[in-house]
């Protein structure tokens, strides 16, 4: 198998001649999922916001400034760097969608701030994020890989950002949502989480297409690199988590969520999970905040329900069914 080659010259993109049908599949999914923060009625969260303690409010704003930084990196450096590595013109187009949506995500946090928070508190949080060593270190670790000369390293760094680094932050709105607080904000964050899942899946898929063309030695080298980068990021992420969440006593709960998402990030690259089941048993309230209604029908094998339930999904009609 030959290694896919970077595009060397610009040709008119032809969506009727697809080289990799994942490009079209993901383009359709991403464009179908398009949204803007104005669609979410954030102002309904004002009564809930004022019910939070000053410490809880400060934590929330800090978490969102940290997420804003990651989205800004993806929008201005990450996605453009990956675009330069594209092997099909359609991949470039998909990455341009990813790039723009990262700008929408970064912009959304400012919508939350302007709707709920006092300007002075937000300015303080931005100052905090500029000075927070763990946040700056996380940014540096990723940016260094984006500058490297290896497209596979850039893709791995990007998947780790999309599928792992966001989650120390995403935890908090899911936690608030599980306590019936800031539920509209949580709805907005769920839209971001959904987008990031497609981004991680797609970039991980493109990583695997190149990875499978490497020699066993080269594969070993890249895999070692990926696990080492994950461990560096993880080490920093645990410190970041402690700095943020120690005051509210949620650090250990957040760490389980980190382990769970680190495993998923590695799976997006086609690698096996790193953390064992007893480190990834995420608080069920957080899992149901992430996927509401998804656990109503107990799984048959787990035996946790009284008996199995035949799905009563509102079946979305697909004209291909014939019965």
């Amino acid at each position, binding site marked *: 198998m030959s290694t896919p080659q970077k595009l060397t010259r610009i040709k008119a993109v032809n969506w009727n001649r697809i080289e990799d049908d994942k490009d079209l599949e993901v383009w359709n*999914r991403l464009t179908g999922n398009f949204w803007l923060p104005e669609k979410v009625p954030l102002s309904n969260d004002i009564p809930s916001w004022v019910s939070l303690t000053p410490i809880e409010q400060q934590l929330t704003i800090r978490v969102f400034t940290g997420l804003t930084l990651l989205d800004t990196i993806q929008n201005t450096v990450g996605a453009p760097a990956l675009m330069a590595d594209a092997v099909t013109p359609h991949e470039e187009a998909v990455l341009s969608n990813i790039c723009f949506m990262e700008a929408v995500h970064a912009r959304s946090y400012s919508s939350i701030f302007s709707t709920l928070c006092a300007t002075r508190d937000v300015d303080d949080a931005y100052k905090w994020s500029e000075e927070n060593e763990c946040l700056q270190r996380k940014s540096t670790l990723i940016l260094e890989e984006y500058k490297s000369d290896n497209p596979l390293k850039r893709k791995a760094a990007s998947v780790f950002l999309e599928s792992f680094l966001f989650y120390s932050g995403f935890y908090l709105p899911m936690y608030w949502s599980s306590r019936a607080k800031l539920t509209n904000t949580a709805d907005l964050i769920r839209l971001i989480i959904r987008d990031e899942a497609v981004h991680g*899946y797609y970039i991980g898929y493109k990583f695997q297409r190149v990875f499978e063309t490497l020699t066993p030695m080269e594969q070993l080298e890249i895999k070692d690199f990926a696990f080492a980068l994950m461990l560096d990021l993880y080490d920093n992420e645990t410190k970041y988590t402690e700095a943020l969440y120690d005051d509210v006593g949620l650090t250990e709960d957040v760490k389980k969520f980190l382990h769970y998402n680190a495993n998923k990030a590695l799976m997006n690259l086609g690698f096996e999970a790193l953390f064992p089941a007893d480190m990834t048993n995420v608080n069920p309230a957080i899992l149901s905040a992430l996927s509401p209604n998804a656990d109503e*029908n107990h799984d048959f094998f787990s035996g946790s329900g009284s008996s199995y339930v035949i799905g009563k999904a509102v079946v979305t009609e697909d004209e291909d069914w014939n019965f």
Partner: protein
Amino acid sequence: MGLLVYFSSKSQNTHRFVDKLNIPAQRIPISPQDDMPEIHEPYVLVVPTYADGDGKGAIPKQVIHFLNDETNRSYLRGVIAGGNRNFGQFYAYAGDIISARCKVPCLYRFELMGTAEDVANVRNGINKLWK
């Protein structure tokens, strides 16, 4: 031990999961040009989910075509669905739809290529199911 029938796109997530189960399995081809398997013994179907924000398009077309065959459908005993919790209420939604339409239980859900725990749970579950 009974049979598994599965679909996996070029991402290979479901293929990797099924591979780890070490249970006889037949793959539904990705390309509509390739021959569709015809099954004549009880089996469990393993499918990934591709739902959009409204739950549409959750099931790969090839899986629908496979289930449109009445003989194939008559031996279906349950469904196992792959997905990603990040898709919210539509996590592993393909399992709900197939369960409702074919009147078989959704046996299990897993994320991406499944963890070691998922593999153990499904192996145990399948063993009990065919006893």
